[in-house]
C-alpha cells in the first residue's frame, strides 16, 4: 500500500483537505491557510526546478537558430520541420516499439520473478538478492557490457551459442532486439520488486478461502492475485513506461542509434549537443515531453480511478 500513498500525495494533498470540513479556528490562520503556507515553499521550489525548464524549453522552441546564433522568432516552424522529418518519425517509432516490447516483456518476467520470490522456500533471501543484481548495475555500464556480449568482436554470445559471426548489432531488426533484450535484463528486477511489494499486501486467507472453494492455482492467480495486484501493476507499468519512453543510454552505447535504433532522446541530444540548434532541439524535447506526459496521464488517471474505487468500497 505504501506505493499508492506515495503517488497519491503528488496531487492529492489539497483534495484530502477539501474532503473534510475545516476545523474550528484556534486563532490565527485557519488550518487550511496554514497548510497552504507550509506547502508554498515546496511548490515554489518545484515550479522553479520542474516547471520553469519546461516553459523555457517551449519558449526556446519558438525561435529560429543557425547553430547557436538566434536568428529571430520562428513561430511553430521548428515543429513543422520536426513533423516533416523522417528521422523524427523513425525515432518516434523506435521509441514506441521499444517501450511496448520492453515493458511487456519486463512485466511478464517481473511478475514471474515476483511470484517466485513471494513463495516461502529455502534460499529465498539469496534468490531475491541475486535477481536484483542487474538492476543495481548502472545503465551505461550494463549497456557497454551488452555491447561486448552482442558485438561480433569479441562476441561472447556468438561463442556461447556457436553462432559464428552473427552480427547482432550490425543489422536492422536484430539491433533493436539486442537493445530491448538488454533493457529487459536490466529492469525486470525493478518490476519484480514493485510487484513483490504488492503481492505481500494480499492477505493469505484470500488464497485459503480460494482453495476451500476449489480454485486451482491458475484460477487463484487470475481471480485473486491479479485483481488485487492491479494498483501495484499500474504503478510498475507507469514507472517503466515513462522511463522507457525517454531511453537514451542503452541504444546510444550499444548501437549509437544506427540500424533504426535511434530514440527520441538520442535525437534531442544530437540537436542540443552535437549539432546545436537549440530551437529545433527544444521543439523535439517539447514533443517528447508531451508524448511522455500524455501517456503518463493515462496511467495516472487509471490509477486515480483505482484509488477512488478503493476508497468508496472501503467506506
Amino acid at each position, binding site marked *: 500500500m505504501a506505493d499508492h500513498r506515495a503517488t497519491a500525495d503528488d496531487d492529492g494533498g489539497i483534495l484530502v483537505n477539501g474532503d473534510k470540513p475545516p476545523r474550528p479556528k484556534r486563532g490565527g490562520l485557519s488550518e487550511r491557510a496554514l497548510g497552504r503556507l507550509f506547502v508554498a515553499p515546496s511548490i515554489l521550489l518545484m515550479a522553479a526546478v520542474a516547471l520553469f525548464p519546461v516553459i523555457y524549453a517551449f519558449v526556446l522552441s519558438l525561435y529560429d537558430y543557425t547553430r547557436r546564433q538566434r536568428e529571430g522568432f520562428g513561430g511553430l516552424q521548428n515543429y513543422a520541420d520536426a513533423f516533416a522529418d523522417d528521422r523524427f518519425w523513425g525515432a518516434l517509432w523506435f521509441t514506441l516499439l521499444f517501450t511496448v516490447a520492453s515493458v511487456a516483456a519486463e512485466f511478464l518476467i517481473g511478475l514471474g520473478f515476483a511470484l517466485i520470490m513471494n513463495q516461502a522456500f529455502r534460499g529465498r533471501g539469496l534468490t531475491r538478492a541475486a535477481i536484483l543484481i542487474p538492476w543495481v548495475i548502472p545503465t551505461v555500464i550494463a549497456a557497454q557490457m551488452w555491447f561486448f556480449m552482442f558485438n*561480433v*568482436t569479441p562476441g561472447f554470445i556468438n561463442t556461447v551459442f556457436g553462432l559464428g559471426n552473427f552480427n547482432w548489432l550490425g543489422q536492422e531488426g536484430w539491433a533493436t532486439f539486442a537493445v530491448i533484450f538488454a533493457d529487459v535484463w536490466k529492469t525486470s528486477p525493478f518490476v519484480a520488486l514493485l510487484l513483490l511489494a504488492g503481492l505481500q499486501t494480499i492477505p493469505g486467507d484470500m488464497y485459503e478461502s480460494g482453495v476451500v472453494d476449489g480454485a486451482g492455482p491458475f484460477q487463484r492467480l487470475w481471480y485473486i492475485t491479479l485483481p488485487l495486484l492491479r494498483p501495484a501493476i499500474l504503478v510498475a507499468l507507469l514507472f517503466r513506461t515513462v522511463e522507457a519512453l525517454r531511453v537514451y543510454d542503452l541504444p546510444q552505447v550499444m548501437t549509437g542509434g544506427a*540500424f533504426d535504433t535511434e530514440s527520441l532522446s538520442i535525437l534531442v541530444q544530437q540537436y542540443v549537443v552535437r*549539432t546545436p540548434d537549440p530551437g529545433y532541439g527544444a521543439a523535439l524535447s517539447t514533443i517528447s515531453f508531451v508524448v511522455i506526459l500524455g501517456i503518463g496521464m493515462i496511467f495516472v488517471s487509471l490509477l486515480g480511478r483505482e484509488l477512488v474505487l478503493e476508497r468508496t468500497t472501503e467506506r
Partner: protein
Amino acid sequence: MRRDGRAYVAAAGALVLVGVACTPGDDDNGDGEGGEIVWAIGGAEAQPGGVHQSVAELWNDENPDNPVRIEQLPEEADQQREQQALELQAEGSNFDVLGVDVIWTGEYSENEWVESLEDVRGEIEEASIPGAFESATWGGELWAAPYNTNAGFLYYRTDLVDQPPDTWEALCDQAVEVSQSEDIGGFLGQGARYEGFVVNWLEYYWSAGGELYNEDQTEVLFDTEIAAQATEFMADAMENGCYAPGFNTAREEEGRNEFQQGNVAFLRNWPYVYSQVAGDDGSPANGNFDIAPLPTFTGQGTVSALGGFNNAVSAFSDNTEAAKDFVVWAATNEEAQTMLATEGSVPPTLESVYEELSDDPVMQVLGEILPDARPRPPAPEWNQISVEMQQSLFPAVNGDADVQSAVESVRSYLEGTVQ
C-alpha cells in the same frame, strides 16, 4: 516532540539551500592577477602522466610567472567541445587556451570564441607542417596554433602478406585470400556509424580523386560518380568478406583489439596502435606487423584524413598575451614538440622534428603521409555535414539503401551549406 524535530530538519534544509545559492564560487583561479594560464584540453594525454602535462611542466620551468594549468576535459571529442562551448557561450574567462579539434576551427571563429593569431602567423606557418597549419585557419585567417596532428595508417601482418597493397582492390583481394586460408578476418577500419565512418569514407572518396569543396568553400565540388564508386566499394567489401566481421560496429578500439589479438590481417587506424601492439608481448601481431601509407584507387600516392588538436586563445581570456605566447611556444618549441612523439602517442606538427626523428618507424611513415593528408573541411557546419553523411551513406554501405540516392542526398545537402 517528533513533529518539532521534523520542523527543525525542514528549517535546516531550507537554510542549506539558501546557503548553497549564496556561496560565491570559490574555485576562482585568480585570473585578475595575470599569472596562471588555464589550458582546457582533453583526451588520454591530458591526464596525469600524459604528454600534455609534460609539455605544461616544461613551459612552467621556463615561465614561472605565467604557469600553465591543465583543465582536464573528457576523453571524447564531442564532450570536450560541449564543455568548452558551455564556458564560451557564457563568455566565461575560466579557459585561456583551448585545445581545439581540427574540425572545430570554423565553428569557433564564426562564434567569435577565439582570438585571431594573424599577428604571429609568420613564425607559426614557417615551422609547421602545411596540413596542420591549414586546419588551424578559417576564411584565410589563422585562429589557432598547430599542436599535434594525426593521420591514418595501414597496419598489416608481415607474416601473412608479402607486400603492402597499392590499391584498395588489391588490399581487398589479399584480405579475402588471407581470411579464407588463415581463417581470420580480412580488413578492419572504423565502420560504425559515427565520425570515424565519415573519416574512412572520405579516405576512399579522396583517394579516387573526389573533393568536397573548392579552396575557400564557396563552391561544392562533390562528385556523385566518385562518391558512388567509394560507397559501392565499401558495400562490396561488406558483402564479399574483405571487411572482417563486425566492421559496421567497429570503432578505433575494436579494430585495435582485433589486430592486437591477431584476428585480422589488415587494419586502418591512427598511429597510437603501433606502440600498443609493439609493447604487447602476448600479441600474435607483435613482431609480425608493419605500417604503410593507405592505398588509393589508382595505385598512385596516398590520402589520409587529418586529425589532431590545435591550441587557440579564448576570446574571453583575461590573460591573452601570456596565452598567445604559450600557444606559439607549444607550436614552435622543438623540445616540447619532440616530446609529443617520443613520450606521447600524438604526432607533432613541427616540421623539423620529422627530420630529426626520421629513424623512428612511425615518424618515418608519418613523414611520407602527412604532405598529402587532408583535413576535413573545418567549416562551422562540419558536425551537421558529418551527421548528414552518416545518415545517408551508412545505410547504403550496409545495403539498406540505394547508393545513387545516398550520394545525391549528400550532394544536395552540401549545396545547401554554401548558399
